[in-house]
């Protein structure tokens, strides 16, 4: 059986084994309320603050005490659940999945000998039912497993025709392998947090829970949304304005829709400012690419209602009757 050490758990604290490890130490929630453990509570709070600002919390696994890395993740979940603010939970899940993504990629790439590769491969297989194996320098997965994930990416390089394929397998780099499961990793961590039940918390946690409630206020400013937007676009704008994570396909919808309505890249870019992983340069670059003013010159079109439905991004109202693409919204609405 694969032995997972505390250092591995510090990297991947969302694994079931992390809970088992904690149980084995005999540490209880009440004990964590003791002032001796206050640094862990502070560390946990810091971890959430970093995540909410869209940064990835960094750990120096060599220098730091791995127990505190693991514990601070678990305490962060307790703080988040007690505060009960979905926006913070989503931001935290996203940042933690990005953090784990880094480690997964490193573990896949650097640890070339098979023994070390067991853990990242096991995580990918156990959590996402994707069997990854190694062929020389490459990672390989079955074509259907690849297709089910890659179809959500719009970049042409993810099309199967642009991949190395042989004997029913797709060949990927470590980075590409991890990129393929990014969304699922975020959803997994989010689901894991949602499933935790917190009945009561130690008094020493209260202060930081209150601070989280204050912190969240910054993301809940109400924003004016034009009634002329179709509901899918409104939804996307609302999600972003709340500072929650909008999947790539949702951002693509917003960008293509607004571009089709004549807005410029400079007008659209600020919309993404609140996104947990916002980066001004990347956003501009991607918007310019979509608008066709850079890259291949292809101007991308707004995805169809059917495609949005398949990506769970459609929130149709009766006003949407008779349209097949969001850009048609409002045009037919006036018909009796």
């Amino acid at each position, binding site marked *: 059986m694969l032995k997972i050490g505390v250092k591995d758990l510090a990297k991947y604290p969302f694994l079931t084994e992390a809970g088992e490890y904690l149980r084995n130490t005999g540490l209880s929630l009440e004990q964590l309320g003791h002032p001796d453990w206050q640094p862990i509570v502070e560390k946990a709070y810091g971890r959430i603050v970093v995540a909410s600002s869209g940064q990835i919390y960094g750990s120096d696994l060599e220098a730091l005490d791995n127990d505190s890395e693991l514990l601070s993740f678990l305490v962060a979940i307790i703080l988040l659940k007690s505060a009960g603010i979905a926006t913070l939970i989503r931001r935290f899940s996203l940042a933690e999945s990005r953090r784990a993504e880094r480690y997964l990629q490193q573990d896949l790439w650097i640890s070339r000998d098979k023994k070390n590769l067991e853990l990242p491969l096991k995580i990918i297989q156990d959590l996402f039912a994707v069997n990854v194996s190694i062929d020389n320098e490459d990672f390989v997965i*079955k*074509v*259907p497993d690849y*297709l*089910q994930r*890659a*179809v959500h990416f719009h970049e*042409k*390089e993810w*099309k*199967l*025709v*642009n*991949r*190395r*394929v*042989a*004997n*029913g*397998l797709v060949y990927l780099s470590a980075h590409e392998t991890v990129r393929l499961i990014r969304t699922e990793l975020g959803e997994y961590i989010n689901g894991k947090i949602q499933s935790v039940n917190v009945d009561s918390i130690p008094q020493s946690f209260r202060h930081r829970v209150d601070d989280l409630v204050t912190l969240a206020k910054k993301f809940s400013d109400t924003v004016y949304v034009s009634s002329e937007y179709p509901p899918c676009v409104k939804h996307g704008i609302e999600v972003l304005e709340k500072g929650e994570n909008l999947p790539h396909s949702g951002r693509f919808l917003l960008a293509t829709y607004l571009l089709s309505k004549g807005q410029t890249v400079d007008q659209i870019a600020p919309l993404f400012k609140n996104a947990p992983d916002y980066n001004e340069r990347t956003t501009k670059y991607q918007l310019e690419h979509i608008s066709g003013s850079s890259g291949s010159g292809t101007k991308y079109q707004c995805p169809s209602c059917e*495609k949005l439905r*398949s990506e769970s991004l459609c929130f149709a109202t009766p006003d949407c009757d008779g349209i097949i693409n969001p850009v048609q919204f409002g045009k037919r609405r006036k018909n009796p």
Partner: protein
Amino acid sequence: MNEKNILLIESAFKEYYFNRFDLIHVPQKATEREFGYQKFNSGMTRHLVVKNDKDLHLLLMKEVPSDVYCSNAYYSFPSLPMSEKDWKGADLIFDIDAKDLALSCRKDHTVFKCISCNNPTIEFSQQCSKCGSTKFETVSVGCKNCISESKKEVTKLVDILTTDLNVKKEQIEVYFSGNEGFHVRVTNNDYESLGSQERADLVDYLMFNGAIPESFGIKRQNNFKASLPTFEEKGWRGRVAHKLFSSKSKVPKATREIIASGYSAFQVQLEEIKKTMGVKVDPKVTMDIHRIFRLEGSINSKSGLSKIQCEDLNSFDPFLEACLLGNDDVNVMVNCPLQIRLKNKKFGPYNNEIVSLPKYAAVYMLCKGLGNAV
């Protein structure tokens, strides 16, 4: 279609269905599939469950359908409306049709039929010489070249499915469609759960749609020969290498030319490769995971020929092996300006004349709209 024609065709179809129960079977997992059928001059009846061969034979005898269909998908409740069926998976299906291959022979076996007076001509003209109407429908009759070119597409498809996608030969069933092409069905557990979008990308792979130069080693700048595909590689890179270099001795010269010509020129080359090496399937059919697809063993009402499995594709002659209606002579009025060949016999051309034809040929003319029962 007029009543007299329907009577003649239905009696021929019924005779075939009655005599050839041995050819007509429900597919695997029949109870999980949706069946449907059509009768002449009426709409589609679907959402049916046909549990076994006996029920199927009963349906054929009772309804004498013009066309019979069965879903490639499996459902928990195949007889319920689409939203309640509970989709569980679907065989991968492919449709290769000669009309999509842009073959030069098409003009030689296509008849332009005036929609107003049914007058058929071989040459296209703006106006019907008889009634002056400007609306025509096209009718294509059987052509050996179309079949042989379609077979080449089937062979390309089977090759990529087996080498790139690891589908076993025994999981691939090839059928003559009953008209001008072939249907391919893949029963492989790995692929059956794929949704419509995934199947669309799979089709793009087979058709070589959307390939970018970067994937084959050509960037916009700074290109090196080491990143170009080689003969030894598998999948599309290997196939592209064979097309680009043709032989090992030509590699150095071709490599220099490719690198010197740059990105856009390479993009054009990839487009050319798509035209010659991409498999020409109908993407809509493969993407559709709720389709009801023509049932094997049933007759195609566009021709009166049967959809039957091809055991040996190379030697398969649809105009002989799929022409399974009766041989008794019937009198029909035929207006067919082209000669057709069925069961190794030539028929026509006929200029609006009453002729005595074997039933299979008479039904063929009626199904193509080039004749009438008398």
